[in-house]
């Protein structure tokens, strides 16, 4: 009887949650025209990459399809948190900022591989190595100096 009551409670929870999903699925995006600000400290994770990892060149640097493939991979695995154009959302920071764009391909690859588990960035080593390098090519292709609105908030 207790097991049945527990199952009922779980079912009701998921039913309520499913209704909530339908109502709030657009809410995770920031309001139009506003880009969420991040503590620059979040980008300090990039500095933790070991020297050897930093110096790794992207083996797909000259692959003409890498950016296109990386674009698709980004939409599939990263856009939900970092935004459709990598501009950042409430969940995860922009990848268009100077800190990311000036990082070496090896640094970005290292961060993708290891994640920042304590700060909700998953480990992406489950993507095969070539796919992670394709993602790095895409992220670097966003390049150029960041627009003012996308810069992280200055330290107080």
């Amino acid at each position, binding site marked *: 009887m207790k097991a049945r009551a527990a199952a009922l409670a779980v079912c009701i929870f998921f039913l309520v949650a499913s*209704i909530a999903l339908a109502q709030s699925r657009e809410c*995770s995006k920031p309001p139009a025209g506003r880009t969420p600000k991040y503590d620059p400290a979040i980008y300090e994770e990039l500095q933790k990459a070991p020297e050897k990892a930093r110096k790794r060149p992207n083996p797909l640097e000259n692959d003409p*399809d890498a950016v296109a*493939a990386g674009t698709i991979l980004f939409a599939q695995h990263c856009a939900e948190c970092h935004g459709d154009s990598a501009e950042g959302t409430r969940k995860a920071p922009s990848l268009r900022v100077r800190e990311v764009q000036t990082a070496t391909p090896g640094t970005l690859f290292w961060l993708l591989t290891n994640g920042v*588990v*304590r700060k909700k960035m998953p480990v992406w*080593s489950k993507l*095969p*190595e070539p*796919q992670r390098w394709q993602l790095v090519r895409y992220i670097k292709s966003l390049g150029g100096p960041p627009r003012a609105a996308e810069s992280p908030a200055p330290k107080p």
Partner: protein
Amino acid sequence: MAPFRWPVLFGIFLFVLLSAFSSKPVTAQENPYFVAYDHYLEEPGNLEIEYFSTFGTQRGGNDFHSFWTEFEYGATGWWTAEFYLEGQTTFHDSTIFTGFRWENRFRPLKHEHFINPVFYVEYENKNGADKIMKEGEGHDVESDFLVSNAEARRERIHEIELKLILSSTFKGWNFTQNTLAAKNLSNSPWEFGYALGASRPLALKASAKRCTVCPQNFVAGAEMYGGLGDRHSFGLHDTSHYLAPVLAWNIPSGWTLRISPGFGLNDNSHRFLLRWGVSREINGFGSMVSRLFGGRR
């Protein structure tokens, strides 16, 4: 309808309902295993809903079809929790709800290493008719399943299961080794088991074009699992063992399909098991629920 059937059926209904209401689909990069675990946890805030089936042959008795629904939630980057509802149909006998499980996996290390440990803790509240065969443990053998559902479900099992998952990814291959220790809380000895797995995507580079039936969307491999006896009689005697090729298809629309024919490796094992499953990941489930209750995540 017998009153014990509805939770499983309702679980399946919720699976469809939640999936239909889900937000933007995300392509999950799921492993193909049914029994073995690798070291990858659910992404934080995401909910994965999974439905699995196992058809098994039974010598000297009736074949069976067991099924379970899993709700897998990424609580943090280092902690994934899962809730299971399970049941089974034994042909020419009956269909019954067999219980639930509460599973937690913890990743102790911050960074990726050559071998990555994950700690696994599970509580099972099930009856003796459980046939999902989610693990091989102790002296579980085929003949245990000869008991009728009516009789088997009278036995109530409260069990704690611990696993050490050691997993490694090398040149696209995943290799994983799970060691299991389980304790029925009703004064039974500790039982032991193992699971091994190896898998690899059919292509390592992603295609530059959007596609559904691309080699990179398929992950193939094999898993092997079985029991290792108990504290009083550790070893391979009177244990069952299985070898199963596994295949997963990660569809870009957000669904993952898995299939695995399994083969018993000794006389104590079921000769043949056919497993299949379907799952879907829902992004940002935690944030949505949080907002429902006025939070802001």
